[in-house]
């Protein structure tokens, strides 16, 4: 099988203007730094980025916002990156705010071949606007739809050469789910090991989901 290792300066070959990118991370914790930097360096623009939050101005995916690479953000929280809020208010950038449990589940559905799911979250709030409501056994639910992207970028603590990944502590967060839901998956890792060095019970993302591994 062909090698999955990808040099940082080859990441740009997988990027294009207007593409959608799912990213792992929570306030920058667990967001792949080298890949974000490569996206910055590549000059691509008009991106749609999808993940929990836009971190701080200078961490996580923050720089992509600050440097005007993003057309649309789908996230749960943007409060710690004032640039996101400013651009949203000025209508320079579109922001879709989604409850956190709903966003991660929409992504999981996109990766799991499901069309959507019924959640009680958001019923009776602005989140329900334009959505179908379905009542089951007396409980009202919103029908939320699956979400996918062209590319997912994830940060792993350890990876083997087959792409099996392990995350560490709270840096796991969105990473294993976004790795399911994109046409192409690029993982960044600090520790690249040989195939067989990660016990099968300890794999958190199976290598078959990972197209490329960037090691720094």
């Amino acid at each position, binding site marked *: 099988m062909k090698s999955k290792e990808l040099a940082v300066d080859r990441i740009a070959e997988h990027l294009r203007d207007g593409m959608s990118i799912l990213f792992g991370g*929570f*306030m*920058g*914790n*667990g967001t792949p730094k080298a890949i974000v930097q490569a996206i910055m360096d590549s000059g691509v623009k008009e991106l749609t980025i999808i993940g*929990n*939050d836009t*971190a*701080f101005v200078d961490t996580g995916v923050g720089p992509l916002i600050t440097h005007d690479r993003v057309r649309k953000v789908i*996230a*749960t*929280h*943007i*409060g*710690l990156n004032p640039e996101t*809020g400013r651009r*949203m*208010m000025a209508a320079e950038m579109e922001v879709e*705010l989604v*409850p*956190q*449990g*709903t966003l*991660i*589940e929409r*992504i*999981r559905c996109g990766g799991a071949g499901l069309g959507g799911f019924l*959640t*009680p*979250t*958001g*019923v*009776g*709030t*602005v*989140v329900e606007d334009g959505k179908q409501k379905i009542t089951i056994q007396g409980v009202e639910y919103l029908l939320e739809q699956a979400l996918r992207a062209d590319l997912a970028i994830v940060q792993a*603590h350890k990876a083997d050469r087959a792409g099996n990944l392990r995350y*560490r*502590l*709270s*840096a*796991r*967060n*969105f*990473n*294993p*789910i976004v790795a399911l839901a994109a046409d192409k998956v690029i993982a960044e890792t600090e520790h690249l090991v040989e195939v067989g060095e990660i016990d099968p019970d300890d794999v*958190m993302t199976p290598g078959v989901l990972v197209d490329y591994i960037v090691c720094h």
Partner: protein
Amino acid sequence: MNAKELIARRVALELNDGDVVNLGIGLPTLVANYLPEDVTITLQSENGFLGLGPVTEEDPYLVNAGGQPCGMVPGAAMFDSAFSFALIRGGHVDACVLGGLEVDQHANLANWMVPGKMVPGMGGAMDLVTGARRVIIAMEHCAKNGAPKILKECTLPLTAKGKVSTIVTELAVFEFEDGVLTLCEHAPGVDLAQIRASTAADFAVSPDFAEMQISQTGMPS
């Protein structure tokens, strides 16, 4: 004792030994400092773990749901965000403690945005308020300008509809009993008239209306 400490010490008595609890950022976080000695709770963090604890040694891989460095207790468990919200929505979190901008007499909560002004996003708040078995709102009784925050109807966009269980302020404790907002306790030195004057909502007064007890555990802040 300032208002925040009073509120946190009162909320601490609402939690039971063995509870799984999610504490919001700010005032709710203080509650962990005042738990009675015979009460051990497990703190859940939205980003994906159980067993949140105070920072011991800083680890770049470990942050709380506010993105700040944190610690963990023995027996902690890590998972992804989908599992985290399966726990939250699935009724596996016994209580969440959150601040509020407004609560109304229909148990509605507004705490995530002020249109045109503050639009940080709801993060996990909508799921927490919808899914936790008990929703405890820990907030100062009135806004900084003195306006009541416990209203007949929320005016701000809702976080969730009809989900609040308990409101603890520096003046009073309210419970929703059979859906009716009910005043249960007053703070020391606060009388019913003062609570009525500071509250816009209609409410019942519990037959057991009494003075608020607070946790004596933990250092004064």
